[in-house]
Each structure stands twice: as C-alpha cells, then as structure tokens.
C-alpha cells in the first residue's frame, strides 16, 4: 500500500508471468488517438487506476502535437513515424508514434522495465500499426469510430503486461 509498492508488485508479477507466457509482455497502457485527438482505443492494465492512464495519454498529446508541428516541414517520405520517448514520469515512460494520416499511437511502459530498448518499442509500434491498418481495411469499420475489433484487441493484449 505504500507508494511505489503498487508499481513494484505489478512489474514483479509480470516478470513472474513471463517465462510461461512466451514473449515478454511489456506495455501497461496502449492507446490509439484519432487525428482530431479523441481516443479511438485505449486500454490499460486493469489493476491500476484506468483514469490515471487516460490522463497520461491525453497529456502526452502535448508533446506529440509539438513533435508533429516540428516535423511538418520535413519531406513526407523522409518522415519518421516513430516519435520516440515523449516524456518520462517517475514510474512510466510514454512513447509515441504517428501515422501519415495523423493517427497517433501512444504506449506507456513501466520505468522499471529496463529490458525494453528503443528497437523493441519501435517494432511494437510497427506491429500495432499493421494491426490498425487491418482494422482500417475492414469495410465495416468507419474511420473515426472507436475501434472494436477482436483481432486488434488480441494484438494489444499480446503486447500488454499480463497480470496473473
């Protein structure tokens, strides 16, 4: 119940879960944000305060906006979609990624998870992007609607820390 204890319990739990559960599960919150900055999809570890992650994702858009506007001048084809670390907090790291259609992906990772390198984050985002593209390809999906796809859900689950 002490501050910080909660975080440790979660990450500790995940580490215990990893060996049996295949590839390491890493993110604590994954969000997809529309071009107009409203959430299309947001999921966080259920054990923790969901609202906290919502706020965290929302505030990270400040940095995303700033990065996008700075990037605006660069040529379209040279543009890097991965925005890198948006901002660090005491307990979490927030990473961002923006598609060419200005849909943003935000991923929150536990700060204690040092095993996670930039490259892994990048590839996770790429996987997410692919899955999102699949969602968009669904003729029954109306761009701009909240994402309610089981395939996408499963993909996100595979990237999230699993709590036993």
């Amino acid at each position, binding site marked *: 119940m*002490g501050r910080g204890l909660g975080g440790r319990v979660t990450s500790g739990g995940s580490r215990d879960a990893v060996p049996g559960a295949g590839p390491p599960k890493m993110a604590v919150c994954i969000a997809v944000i529309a071009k107009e*900055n409203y959430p299309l999809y947001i999921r966080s570890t259920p054990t923790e305060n*969901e609202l906290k992650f919502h706020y965290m994702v929302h*505030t990270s858009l*400040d940095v995303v906006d700033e990065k996008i506007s700075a990037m605006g001048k660069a040529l379209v084809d040279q543009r890097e979609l991965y925005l890198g670390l948006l901002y660090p907090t005491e307990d979490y790291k927030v990473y961002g990624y923006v598609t060419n259609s200005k849909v943003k992906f935000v991923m929150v990772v536990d700060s204690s998870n040092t095993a996670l390198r930039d490259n892994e984050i990048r590839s996770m985002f790429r996987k997410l992007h692919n899955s999102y593209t699949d969602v968009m390809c669904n003729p029954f999906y*109306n761009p*701009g609607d909240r994402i309610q796809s089981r395939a996408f859900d499963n993909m996100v689950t595979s990237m999230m820390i699993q709590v036993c």
Partner: protein
Amino acid sequence: MSPTQWDFPVELCCRPMAFVTLTGLDVVYNAVHRAVWDAFCANRRADRVPISFKVLPGDHEYPKCRPKRTSYEWYIPKGILKTGWMNKHLNLVPALVVVFYELDWDEPQWKEKQSECATRVEIVRQSLQGRNTKVAVVLIQKKTPLPPGEDVIASERAAALCNACELSGKSLFVLPHTDHLVGYIIRLENAFYEHAQTYYYTEIRRVKSHKEFLNKTTHQLLFVRHQFKIAFFSELKQDTQNALKNYRTAYNLVHELRAHETNILEIKTMAGFINYKICRLCFQHNTPLDAIAQFRKHIDLCKKKIGSAELSFEHDAWMSKQFQAFGDLFDEAIKLGLTAIQTQNPGFYYQQAAYYAQERKQLAKTLCNHEASVMYPNPDPLETQTGVLDFYGQRSWRQGILSFDLSDPEKEKVGILAIQLKERNVVHSEIIITLLSNAVAQFKKYKCPRMKSHLMVQMGEEYYYAKDYTKALKLLDYVMCDYRSEGWWTLLTSILTTALKCSYLMAQLKDYITYSLELLGRASTLKDDQKSRIEKNLINVLMNESPDPEPDCDILAVKTAQKLWADRISLAGSNIFTIGVQDFVPFVQCKAKFHAPSFHVDVPVQFDIYLKADCPHPIRFSKLCVSFNNQEYNQFCVIEEASKANEVLENLTQGKMCLVPGKTRKLLFKFVAKTEDVGKKIEITSVDLALGNETGRCVVLNWQGGGGDAASSQEALQAARSFKRRPKLPDNEVHWDSIIIQASTMIISRVPNISVHLLHEPPALTNEMYCLVVTVQSHEKTQIRDVKLTAGLKPGQDANLTQKTHVTLHGTELCDESYPALLTDIPIGDLHPGEQLEKMLYVRCGTVGSRMFLVYVSYLINTTVEEKEIVCKCHKDETVTIETVFPFDVAVKFVSTKFEHLDRVYADIPFLLMTDLLSASPWALTIVSSELQLAPSMTTVDQLESQVDNVILQTGESASECFCLQCPSLGNVEGGVATGHYIISWKRTSAMENIPVITTVITLPHVIVENIPLHVNADLPSFGRVRESLPVKYHLQNKTDLVQDVEISVEPSDAFMFSGLKQIRLRILPGTEQEMLYNFYPLMAGYQQLPSLNINLLRFPNFTNQLLRRFIPTSIFVKVKLSNFLLFKFKVLKTNRLLFHVNFTEQYFETNSDSFAFYYMYLAVLLFISIVTFYRI
C-alpha cells in the same frame, strides 16, 4: 517541529560568502564611521567581491574553539553534521577581523595612540583564541596620504605600529577619509578578500589533515562530515569547482553509510542537502544536464529508502521537498538565462512534488487516524533542551545514539505517536495546491495545454478535498470544455462527477442541473445505475425537492448541504433556468429540419423537430418552442403542456410530451409564410425545450440554430462517412443519425401560371426600330390583377450597351438618347382566365453585337392557403438574346471619267464618285432614298439626283450610284480633302407604313487632290465608222500661272489616216486654252488604237504621256459600214466558216452602244436562222 521541518535550512540555500567582521566602528554616533560602513554594505553590486560584513564591538566574544583533538582513536561521532555548523561559519566565525582605528601619521600623541591600537588588536586576538582567523588594522585618517616612500614619518610609524600590534605589513591599511571613500573601500575589501581566501584555504587544509586519523569502521560519519566541510569551505573560498568535486565525493560517501531504520532519516536529510548543493552548483556552472542527471541519480538512490513504515509519510514529504527544491533551482536558472524545453522544464518537478505531497496526504490519512481521545504525549518527546536538534535528521528523543537497536521501544512509540499527531495538523491540500499551481504556471509557459488542464483538474479535486467547493468548481468548469472539445469522455465524466458533488454540496441549482444534464447524456461513461440515480435527483430538483446526496461525500458537508437545499426550496425566486446547450452534451438531443430548402409562398412551411433522450428513464417536457429570425412566426411553433382545466386535450398531448429513451420523437410544425418574406430566408434561431414546470422548477434547454450540441458536429461527420446499413425501422420512425439539420429555408414566390411569348424577326439592324411582340396569356383560374410588364435590356450587361440601347412602346417615332434601356412596370391591367394580351415593343440598338433582353411579367392573384386568404405576387420572365447587325455595307470609290481607278484626283478635272450599297440584312431592305451631301470644297458637274430611290434590295444584292464631281485646286492639303456625306434613308421592306424611315449617314473618304500643269481633254464621238470622217478636238488648258511651251506630236496609227498638225510647238498663256483639231479617218473596224497624242512640256519634264493618257481616250470603237457588213456576212456563210462566224456574232453583241444594236440584233437573228437552215441542208 514546525510544519516547515522539510524545508532546507537557510544557511544551506544561500550563497556562501566570506565572513569578515569590522570592529572599532561606531556606526550609531560617528558620522565618519557610518559613512565607512555604508560604503561597505550599501548597494553592493554584483561586481564587488563576495564578502558578508558585520560590525561587531572590539571585545565581541567569538564562538569558542574546541580544544584540538590529538587522536581520533576513541572518538565516536554522534551524527553527520551539526545543525549549527554552517551558520557558525557563515555568520559567527569570521575569516578576518578588521580593527578600525582613527590615527593620523602626524598624531602628536603617537605613542599613546599606538599602544591603544595594539591593545585593541590584542583584545580581538584574545577572543579568537585558537582560531586561524586573520586580524587586520585599518587606520582612518583625516589627511590624504602622500605617495608611498615619500612620507618618511609615515613609513617609520607604520613599521612601529605593525611591530606593536604584531601584524605583518600586509595587514595594516590606511583609509583616508576624503572624497574618494568608495574607491578606497573597494581597494580595502579586495585586500580583505585575499586574507579571507587564505583563511579558508588553511581551514580546508586543517580539515583535510584530520583525514589520516580516521578509520572506516568507527568514523564513517566523519568521512562525510569532513568532506562536506571541505566542500563548504571551498564554497566560502568561492572555489566552486572544488566545492562541486568535494560535494560529489561527500554524496557518494553518504550512500556508503550503513543505513538502518533508525538513521535513514539522517542519511536522507544529508543526502538531500548535498544533492541540493551539487545541483545548485551545476546550474551555476551552466551544466543543467549534469544537474538533472545528479537529481535523477539521487531520486533513484533514495526512492526506496522509506524507513519506518509508521512514518512513511515522512518519506513522501521528503521526496516532495526534493522535487520542489529542484524545481525551484531549475526555475531560478531559467530566470538567469537557461532555456528549458517542453519535455524538460521545472513543471515536471513541481508536478512530481505535488504527486508526493498527495501520497503523503494519503499515507497521513491512513497512518494518523487516531481516535480523538488519543492525547499528545506529555512530556513532548519532540522537545529538546535547546529547542533544536544537535544533528540534522536525527530523532529528538534519541539524539546522538548510533545503535541500530532501540534501547527504549516505549519512548520510540511515544515519539512516533507525537510525529503522527503533528502530521495530522498539516494542511496537506494547501501544499499540494501550491505545488500544482507552480507546475501549471510552468506548463503554460512550455506549450503543454493538456498537462496544464490535467493539473488544474487535480487542483480542483484538491480544493474539493479541502472543502473549498467554489474554487474547485471554478477550476473544474474551466477545464471541462477542453476535454469535451477533444472528446475524452471518460475524463470528462470523472471531472463532471466531482463537479456535481461540489455543486450538490453548495446547493448550486443551475450548476447542479447542468452537470446532471451532461452526466445523463451520451457523452457520459457512467453506468446506468448511476445515471438513473442522477436522473431521479434531477426530477426531484425539478419538482422543487431536495436531491439525494452524492455518494462518497464528507458526512459533515452533506449535512450542511441538506440544509442549504432545504433553504433553496423555501426560497421564492426565479426558478426558471435557461441553459444554452451548444457548449455541452445534454441528455436530450434536438434536430430541426425544414421539409424543403425552399417553400412557395402559397404552400404552408413545414418542418420537424426531432428529439431524443439518452437518459435511462422516460422524461417529460412541458413546453417546446421554436424561434425564428422573423419573430412573428414564433407564436405558431409552440407545443405546451395543456393546462389542467383542459383534461381532454391533456391525454392527447401526454404521449407527445414524453421522451422515451433511445426513441426519436418527431414533432411536425407548419405555418403560413408572410407574403413580405418572399425572397427571404426563414431561419430557426433557437429551439427551447422546457423540462419541469413553472410551479416547481423549470429548466429551459436552449439550442442555437437548428439544434446540435458540443458533440453533434463530430457525430454528424461520422454518420456521413458511415456506409453502415441501418436496420429497417417501422414507418414514421427514423434513425437519429440519418437526420440532417436543416435550419433555414427560403420563401419563394408562387409559381406563375401565365405564358409569355416573344415574336420578332432577328437579327436586329443597327439603328432600326426593332419590333418585339410580347404575348401574355393567363392560364390562372381566377382573374389576375395589376399585370405589369418590365422589358428591355437585361441589367448587368456591359454598361456601354445601356447607352446604345433604347426601348419604347411607340414605334411611330424614332427614339433618341433620352429613351431608357429598360422599361419598368408598364401597367397592362387585369387579365381574365384564358385572356391573351399583346404588347409591341420597339428596340433601337445603336451598335452591333448581341444583347440579352428581359421580358418580365408580374401580377397579383388572390389565393387561399390553409383557409387563409393571401395575395400572391407572381412573376414570369423570359430572356432572349438578339444579335444586331449592320443592314448594309457601303463601298465608295473614286474613278476617272474613263472609269479607271484613281488614288488621287486632279484639281479642276472632273472625276466620278461611285457608291456601292451591299445589303447585309437577311431581310429585304427598301432604300427609300439616298442623298449626296458634298463638302464645300467639292462641286458637282451635273445634277445630284438619287439614282436608287425606292429600290428593294434582297440579301446580297447591291445598289450603286455614280456622281460626277470636280474639285478646285486647294493647294497641298495634308490627309486629303473632305468629300462629304452619303445619306441613305431606308427601312425594312416588311416594316409597317407608320414605322419611321431610318437615315444612315456615311462619311465619304477624303481624297488627295493634286494639281497638274496642263489639262488635256478630247472631244470626240463615241464611235467611228470605217471610212467615215471622225473629227477630234483636243483642248489644252494651261493650269499654271506660267506661259507654257508645249511640244505636240501625233504618232500615226495603222488604223487611221488623219489630217491636222502632226508636230507643233506652241505657247499657251496662263489660264488660256488651246484647241487642236484633227480629222481621223478610220480604216479598220473594231477597237482601234487612236493615233497617240504626245505632249512634251518643256517646263515640266515630269508631265508624261502616261499621265496624259488618263485624260484622253487612247482608242475608239470603229464600226463597219452597214452595206459592207451584210456583204461580208454572206461571204462568210458561203465559206462555211462556222466557228469564225459565231465568234463574230459574239463580238458583235458587245458593241451594243446605241439604237443600231437592235438592228444588228435582228440581223444576228436572221443570221442565226440562216446558220441553222444551212446545217439542216
């Protein structure tokens, strides 16, 4: 302990400066001393050396120096750093004591003064017993000293004084009290500064010298202490680089200490101090990244050193302080010129500080929830004898005890209880809010609007916890719209929930209703049970009853709130609240839709209002009214709850006035538009929906325009994008998403039921009165009144056309410039059903080109709409494009009397003017007459009668005229001579008798007139006959003022014999004429070359025969004698030369010059017959 226990001590946070005391100055009563002191301490600018001065009496007791320890072997330190140590070296133990003494070099009682001075120095030395503090003497002198070496007495006495005071020469100064006091003072303090630096240097050496006696087992604390001291002395010495280095070492040493629950606070406290110093120095050295790195390391190392679980809030307090202090340092550095960025600015540290403060509050809440009966322990375990702790970070009840085992668990318990009870009194919210507002200020600066909003939400929530609901509501209300506009409904719902609690607790009716409306709406993510609770409350409020309290509210606050609500009920006052919904997402949605984008004035305007409720239970509304830009329609579009008296109707409207969740309710309205509004837009400006009634409380939801709220535009966009097929609904039900708001419609005039025909014969001819017949026929069922015709050039075309187009109703007279281009509102009168009316219109177009003509017929008709009689104004218009062309082309040419083309004419010599009028009109033209108006310079040779009167020209036909003119010599006129005008009067052949004739004036071209010296004309018959005399007379006129010598010769021709002068030379006087008579005798028939007349003017060599030939004929037709001709013919017949014969006939026809022609023709016919008979034979 004070609530500022966690604040860093002042002596840690200040910039350490060398401490120098000044003695012997009487700053109160001595003006000179006062001036000296002011010069030292007043207005110290940054460029002065960093020294802190203090005036003390000469006999001031300085802190005693502890006797030097010879061995550390048995010494066990009791703590890391004494609380008084920093202050001691900043403010108590000077680096230098300066003795001020008034003494001039020429002092008469020198000996006495010298020994008094020495005594004073001695007293100072006494009180500094054992310290390395330097002593210096400053002599305050009245006289300006001479340059060094010149004043022998001075140097002698100075040496003596130094000796007496046991001072080195470097420690004796002279301060002349003259005009340049500040300059002397600055030099003095620079010298003091050097002394101070030497002092601190020796202090550092002294502390370092202790090191070798220490051992790592018992003296761990001393390692840290000494290292800290060295660093601190370095700072005093202004050697910040070494200070930083030593602090870093000290920091590492702190973490090497063995930590235990009992000493963890001391370690953290010291670590915090040293970290603060390091960060501060890093910022000072402009290496902010080092500072940040150090801070991160510090936090990572200390984060988990929580210490006693019962006092874990202390750790959070400490953490919060660490972040806050770093934030302050960062902010300070920014003020001094450092640039921060969006992702690395002090705001993050304040935010984190606030976070730890919140955590502290949470822990304090759980750990310090002792019963009210638990008394604060007596005696106070937190009280110490001196009132302060000996060492930083130790517990007051076990100071200096290093053992990790608790010797007295009971005492420990009491101490902890005391701390917990103290913590209970801390106003955490205040701390949190301060930190949050610091962070907000920073994030505002670094373009983080969302972070700012988030922190403001936290502030609002904190105010809520602190029971300051007004401020809470203000903050929450301020940020709500940010979350709403970005569509973060989860966050918005959370904020709204808190806001609803605040408004409940304050019994703020309007806010309470507003937040309820939105929490019930589709943007809310609340569960249904919550929603139905809120809806129930809302209905209660509307019925003027108290709502149930919101869950999780403070019990005391709820009690107060319930009283407030009870007061609200009894309070009479305005109970109608109008809430504009465009800025939020209420639970009733509204869309207004006109059935059509435009309505004819003779049909009723119809529109639907769609309503949909998103709340969990059905809700009734009491009134719906629609407002328009023309407020006169408002009265027709109101649905109101039937009054109680009219119960029959009530049942009817019941269903209508009830909104069932999820069902779209459609309400149809219709009204008759006013005829004045034809051509105008009718717009729904607002829709008002009243919930509750006026006897209880009434809430009016006000939609601007045709409905829609903060979220609906995005929804409409999504719905428009969607390809989803909506499930089929029963009739008269619609899908909400498929309804598109149409908030305005146009009122257009009634459809006309008349026909307008135009009859005309295009194209129009320039300047003619072009006739346009307009036929209007009424197909209406009733009589139409006030029929008016507007006709003419359609407005909005080229402005020049307006000038050159004229319209009139009267074709009998030619219209001029004063006639308008458009005739407006020509009254035609009334028309009965089926009646037809014709109107002639004449248009005169002054220029060619195409024009658009408008024929516009308007009328009034009475009609009935919805049992309402209205007068409609209808109109019908026709447009026609008419091309205007020139009626004919006129070509004019000048030819000689021989019909040869002339490019110039010769003075006084007749020439011909030929006009050629080619009809270009597709319609037959009648040339009424033509007239040649000659310019004054031209004269006519014969009558100028028109030769084309009443000629009718079909398309492509032309009419030519020929006039013989003559032009007198006018000298050399540039550009030629004006000829005059050719005036043609004409009209269409088809035009009626009374249509005026149009006169077209054509300006004839100018002609170049040239003078010739000699004019020759010949008089000769039009033809000759073989072997018949042909008299020819040549007139030679001298046109010059000179006597002309003329050589004339006649060259013989084969076809002629002639008599007359063959060659002659003669003179012609000016202005006179010479006649030459010849008799030619033709020998051959046909066109024959006349014997050519050659004239040679001796004075005018360029008068050539070429020119001459223009005037006189060169050949003549010679006919055969009739008898000879017939003989010849027969001979031809005999020779059967048919071909020749035919040729001959043809040639013969060409000679039709006069009445002989008939005769010849007759012969020819004869001849022809004979030829034919010959062939038959």
